[in-house]
């Protein structure tokens, strides 16, 4: 399905990003992952990509730092020669009520979750424009659509990603590059493992399909958007949320 393609997955060391990286590799793509600092986890992902018979590269990159991002994409191009798929998945949370939210919590989340998408997207437009083809998939969140108390910074960033997705899609459409977002609901990862049990039970009540999502649920949607089968879809946000938000 993706044989001969090269993918970059940011935040590919753990959670949703790892599942995306491994799923794309199983579909035939060589995969480079970016991670923040968790080298051991990154190496585990590399092992899983290689176990699928594909080439892998793990780079420690802060996606909010333009110099590091530019250098990293150069390294990927030097190693793999092309980039067909970019998945902007790296993300963090610094939850608090707006009244209590510190300025640095706001800045860190916006810089990683929104500016990071901008910087990585900018870095791949050149090689993708030259190839006259490309797939950019941004991981947003249902809370970016619906809002969520205690996550003003995160929600603002995720809503921003949806706007960025629509605009980038329109700018790059004439060059054969599609840009879409995925809005996961509640997915079981390290990010959600820290939430209190009663909150989780409360969330479960709001999910029509009656279960939390798995990282594979998200990865399968990414695989589809990355494939040739999704060639006529651009500027869209696909919810992978068990029916949680239907707007």
């Amino acid at each position, binding site marked *: 399905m993706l044989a001969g393609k090269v993918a970059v997955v940011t935040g590919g060391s753990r959670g949703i990003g790892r599942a995306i990286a491994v799923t794309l590799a199983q579909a035939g793509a060589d995969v480079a992952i970016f991670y923040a600092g968790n080298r051991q986890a990154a190496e585990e992902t590399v092992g899983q990509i290689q176990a699928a018979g594909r080439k892998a590269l793990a780079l420690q990159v802060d996606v909010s730092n333009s110099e590091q991002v530019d250098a990293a994409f150069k390294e990927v191009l030097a190693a793999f020669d092309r980039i067909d798929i970019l998945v902007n998945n790296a993300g963090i949370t610094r939850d608090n009520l707006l009244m209590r939210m510190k300025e640095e919590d706001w800045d860190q989340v916006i810089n990683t979750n929104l500016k990071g998408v901008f910087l990585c997207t900018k870095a791949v437009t*050149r090689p993708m*424009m*030259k190839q006259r083809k490309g797939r950019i998939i941004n991981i947003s969140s249902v809370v970016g659509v619906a809002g969520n108390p205690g996550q003003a910074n995160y929600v603002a960033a995720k809503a921003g990603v949806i706007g960025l997705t629509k605009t980038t899609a329109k*700018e790059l459409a*004439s*060059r054969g590059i599609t840009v879409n977002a995925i809005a996961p609901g509640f997915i079981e990862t390290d990010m959600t493992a820290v939430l209190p049990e009663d909150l989780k039970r409360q969330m479960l009540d709001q999910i029509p399909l009656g279960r939390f999502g798995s990282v594979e649920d998200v990865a399968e949607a990414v695989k589809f958007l990355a494939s040739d089968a999704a060639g006529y879809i651009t500027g869209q946000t696909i919810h992978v949320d068990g029916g949680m938000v239907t707007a």
Partner: protein
Amino acid sequence: MAENTFERVKKIIVEHLDVDPAEVTLEASVKDDLGADSLDVVDLIMQFEDEFGLEISDEEAEKISTVGDIVSYIEQKQQ
């Protein structure tokens, strides 16, 4: 040398913008006369970079308006 650069630039413009070679004069404005949109300009710059093995910064690219600007810029860089 001068003609050589011009001919190479012209060839890229003709192929990329699908215009009549006769329209690609040194005085022609890439956007107004040859109909390039801003994305075409970015695209052309990338192709000139490849063809001539140089790097054109965003600030420099913004100053380019006519085909002549491109040719003199490239020749200046190559010296």
